């Protein structure tokens, strides 16, 4: 009986996903057509691409440099204007969202490097280690009734790179190859980063 119930649940899930899938398919195809139109100089298509992706670029940019919205706007501006100038020489990316987010990050890091010359970044390992000791004692579980609050706070305890990797994997749906390139590490490291973060979360969260 018990397994029969499970089956039923799955069928429901798959049917629901099927609808999403069909939407995704046409969406992706349409996006590629937009890209090609943009490359041939169609400003309307370019504008549509902007509208499709600017919200995600904004949230990703803000997650990297939350202190300055204006700076994030500047960087998005630079990415799109550069695209326009170089449009004829671009190839069609496999994943336009990934391509745009990657360009945005490159731009942000480039400008930050110029801007803050005194700032010497820690090595990536130093950085992750800083967060390694964050212990569960910080939270008195009984004070956090709200599960959402709890999980939010736990995610905030992860290292910035782990958080970034989680955002890219679980929200922007990038694969580990893409995440690796975003974080300038190899594929295995990207996977480990996410794995360790989720392992940690799981040990904290009562599921």
């Amino acid at each position, binding site marked *: 009986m018990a*397994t029969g119930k*499970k089956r039923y649940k*799955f069928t429901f899930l798959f049917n629901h*996903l*099927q609808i*999403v*899938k069909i939407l*995704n*398919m046409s969406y992706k195809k349409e996006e590629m057509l937009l890209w090609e139109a943009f490359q041939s100089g169609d*400003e309307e298509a370019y*504008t549509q691409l*902007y*509208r499709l992706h*600017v919200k995600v670029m*904004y*949230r990703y940019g*803000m*997650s990297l440099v939350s*202190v*300055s919205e*204006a*700076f994030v*706007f*500047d960087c*998005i*501006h*630079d990415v*799109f*204007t*550069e695209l*326009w*100038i*170089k449009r*004829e*020489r671009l190839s069609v990316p496999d994943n336009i969202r990934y391509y745009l987010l990657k360009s945005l990050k490159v731009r942000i890091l480039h*400008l930050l490097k*110029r*801007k803050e010359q*005194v700032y010497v970044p820690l090595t990536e390992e130093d950085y992750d280690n800083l967060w390694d000791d964050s212990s569960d004692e910080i939270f008195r579980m009984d004070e956090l009734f709200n*599960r*959402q609050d709890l*999980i*939010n706070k*736990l*995610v905030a305890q992860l290292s910035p790179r782990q958080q970034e990797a*989680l*955002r890219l*994997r*679980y*929200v922007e*749906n990038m*694969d580990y190859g893409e995440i690796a390139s975003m974080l300038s590490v190899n594929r295995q490291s990207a*996977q480990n980063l996410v*794995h360790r973060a*989720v*392992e940690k*979360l*799981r040990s904290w*969260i009562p*599921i």
Partner: protein
Amino acid sequence: MQKDYKSFTIVDFATDDAFLQHHLNPTRDSQSFWENWLARNPSQVEEWQQAQKLLEAVRLGLEDYTRTFLSKEAEEQLLNRILNTNALYSHGSTGSPAIVSATWGKIFAVAACLLIMLSIGANYFYGKKTEDSRTIYNRHKALLFSSVIEKANTTSQVDSIKLPDGSTVLLYPGSLISYSTEFGKTNRTVSISGRTMLDVVKNPEKPFIVYANELVTRVLGTRFEVEAYEDSKDVVVKVLSGQVSVFKNGTLTTEHKSEAEQAGVVLKQNQQVKFSRQSEEFNKKLVDSPLPVIQNTSQAPSFTYEETSVVSVFEDLEKAYGIDIIYTKSQLETCQLTASLSNEAFKDKLNIICKSIGATYEVVDAYIIIHSSGCKSLQS
């Protein structure tokens, strides 16, 4: 999808590309793959399901991120800015495509690209934004002055600048100051960006006015510091001596007559105000380490006491630092102090005094409030 999923744990599933791809963006292939796999591996169904829950939990924890909201207005504004820049740089190449050969087009594109990068780079090097979003500093500069003298500190050391009226400005690295060629004759107005410390020569007829981000600071003659970085959340004005008035600059026009009606605060020595650019609130308080105001040592109190009433000790402190101390005089009259406090910093002095009379103090806004229940041992 040739992985050995049989040994997969919950976390393994919940972090697996194929598993996540299927849940976040399913395709017909992924659907049939997992359907088949689950049918063949009933013992793993439990893990698989738990992984689904874990995935949901992780996504729940990322909601702060997912919900980052870009307003429609901001989206449109940014789009316009982008299209404007594009129009600016594709001007000329669109005119006669038949004549402009492909190679020239390319060279032009590369040159334009370089130009943009150079200008953006240069702007950022000076700690400012790109040309399109003209900074507040630049707007001030353009509005206030017809012909401008601008000094930028691009070194890593503090730079000292003498203004035509004899006032001096310490310009911190990455900071800018500009003023009109008329400075000192018709006005004493400067516009700054970054961190500066100003020592202003007294001239009651020509107030010295500083524009910094959203704030306008008006002084007669004094020493004070302004911190107004283009990208920081707050604007801070600290007064070292004298008195200044700080206003929010609402209109950014050359008419600053309405200043008196605008929200603002008056700052005395050892006070500072932090203006939050987001909430537009003024937060006035004492500077972290107050310094004595009286320069002339013969007038300055010695801070050496022998069985002196603590009331006159507080009076000395108020006089020397220009800080208001609030206490109940009748309560403290009987408290006496024997101490030498000439070398201690302001807050150390306060601590020692309060400890020896069994009182505590509190800093509220720019005031010190003394809490005490009097000195009973002496009364009895």
